[in-house]
């Protein structure tokens, strides 16, 4: 176990190091004039000259990389050109709203996807199975930004069931101002027993969360189905069936246990993917999160902000994968011994 953990930790550190090298290459080496990029499209010649010295572009490349990493470790992630704030502080401001959105989306995805995957495996080859397969493939193929607009159009504008955008109603924000504890309106509303805000926040999060849920929903349905079908072919399942165990018990006790690992993996994977999907849909829903910040940064060529978001998401992704691998190794001796 210890050797597995050490190896896995070392590999993750190596990945993070590599991520920083790629980010460095993208900010300092590829752009024809990094100082130009750094200052944005409307900089004067003097500003660019000053930026060149500030960025240390006159120093050799390895020294530049060292300074770059040292800056990141000190928490100096540069200053956003759009907001004029330190990038790290911006990320802290916008991240909670995105995490709230992604978690609600993943809850929806797993609440639908896991039962659907089980059903699909239990009824393999039937029309139910075909339908759920089509749904899971569609979920993965849907352009999220397009789905977002369709939901806004049909459920928001035409049927008037959900608000088009925002996290809270304007009047609600004034009448029942939410206290900021965690940055998640849902959690904060529960803690402060602010029920009108909770209701309104759920109302507002529904459409963006459903949009984000489609990809993990498709992936989890599919993965649960394949895993179960694989497991159901194993000898110990045949033994359980042969000894007269009811099919529902075979599924619930013996087969499903094997699906925990894949669900964890898909959770970590899709959390990372959903973070990127927020870039596409948060602006549409005027959701004040990381994604809207990133999309705005891309449009206005706000280089420090783009790289800050990229590093944050990649690091989150690496760390989540590490955690999932360790949890799985802890639960399943077959992994840590192989």
């Amino acid at each position: 176990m210890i050797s597995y953990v050490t190896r896995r930790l070392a590999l993750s550190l190596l990945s993070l190091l590599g991520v920083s090298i790629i980010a460095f290459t993208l900010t300092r080496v590829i752009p024809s004039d990094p100082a130009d990029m750094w200052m944005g499209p409307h900089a004067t010649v003097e500003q660019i000259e000053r930026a060149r010295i500030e960025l240390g572009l006159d120093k050799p490349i390895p020294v530049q990389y060292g300074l770059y990493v040292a800056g990141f470790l000190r928490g100096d992630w540069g200053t956003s050109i759009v907001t004029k704030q330190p990038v790290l502080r911006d990320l802290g401001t916008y991240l909670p709203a995105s995490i709230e959105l992604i978690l609600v989306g993943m809850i929806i995805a797993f609440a639908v996807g896991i039962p659907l995957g089980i059903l699909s495996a239990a009824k393999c080859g039937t029309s139910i199975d075909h339908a759920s397969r089509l749904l899971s493939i569609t979920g993965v193929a849907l352009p999220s930004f397009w789905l977002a607009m369709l939901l806004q159009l049909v459920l928001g504008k035409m049927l008037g069931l959900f608000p088009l955008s925002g996290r809270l109603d304007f009047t609600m924000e004034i009448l029942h101002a939410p206290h900021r504890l965690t940055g998640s309106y849902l959690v904060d509303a529960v803690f402060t027993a602010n029920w009108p805000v909770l209701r309104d926040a759920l109302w507002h999060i529904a459409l963006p969360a459903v949009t984000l849920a489609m990809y993990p929903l498709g992936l989890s349905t599919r993965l649960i189905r394949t895993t179960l079908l694989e497991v159901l072919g194993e000898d110990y399942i045949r033994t359980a069936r042969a000894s007269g165990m009811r099919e529902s018990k075979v599924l619930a006790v013996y087969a499903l246990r094997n699906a925990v690992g894949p669900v964890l993996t898909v959770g970590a994977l899709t959390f990372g993917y959903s973070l990127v999907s927020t870039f596409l849909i948060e602006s549409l829903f005027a959701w004040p999160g990381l994604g809207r910040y990133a999309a705005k940064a891309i449009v206005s060529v706000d280089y420090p902000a783009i790289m800050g978001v990229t590093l944050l998401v990649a690091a989150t992704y690496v760390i989540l994968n590490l955690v999932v691998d360790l949890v799985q190794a802890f639960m399943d001796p077959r992994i840590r011994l192989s």
Partner: protein
Amino acid sequence: MWRRLREAARRAKRNPLTVVGLLMVALVIVLAIFAPWIAPHPRDIQVVHPNDLFRPPSLEHLFGTDEMGRDILSRVIFGTRISLRIGTLVVVLALAIGLPLGIIAGTFGGLLDEILMRVTDIFLSFPPLLLAMAISAALGPRLENAMIAIAIAWWPWYARLIRSEAVSIRERAYVEAARAVGTSWPRILLRHVLPNCLAPVIVQASMDFGSVILTSASLSFLGLGAQPPTPEWGLMITVGRTFFLTHWWIVTFPGLAILLAVLAFNLTGDGLREILDPKAKRW
């Protein structure tokens, strides 16, 4: 040969979704090749009509017209050319990097293999769309740059896939036999290892065709891919987002085109997996 084809056709028939996928792919290809003849208003790729802005769908314009009075159906049809070109170029480019590296690392192992694994680890530390986004942001917003960026984000997946295939093929008796009779390494790689790891590569490539189209549409939506007036589906949605609440047809049809094209390649890839890899029959 015929028996294998018949067997494949039989298996394909058992899964109606595969047939649907193949037909849809065929349709996309036909539309792309004959776009100038099929599109009702082929000149609308360039020409604007100030008197026909925002016309809702009608017999004259089945998908309506956009904010410049251009026929949306024609632009969607021409969009198949762009999406197919993006899919082909990116997959070929990613394979051109990943295939040789994977096959050499997998067959010979050793230090080279270790280095390849660590380098791909790093690339796989990014969700592909994120890496493609960061690279194309650095290269500048052009469709060509977006394609290069996606290929750079994609090659490690091929390298890993082909490596793992090559590792298992390396141990096979026919490779041993070829080596024993003194066959040269380049010949072993080309004649024995490569053909035997192609099946999963073909499956993966056809699935990736869909993902690449979706990724490039997403990049265009973020303003990083195609630029106006290219009839690229993602870009058409970006431009239409300002008007979609009042003019639903502007974003609906290009989005539907993306969904159906991606679906077509995913269903085909899924079906191919069943046909080419009988072990995974259940899928």
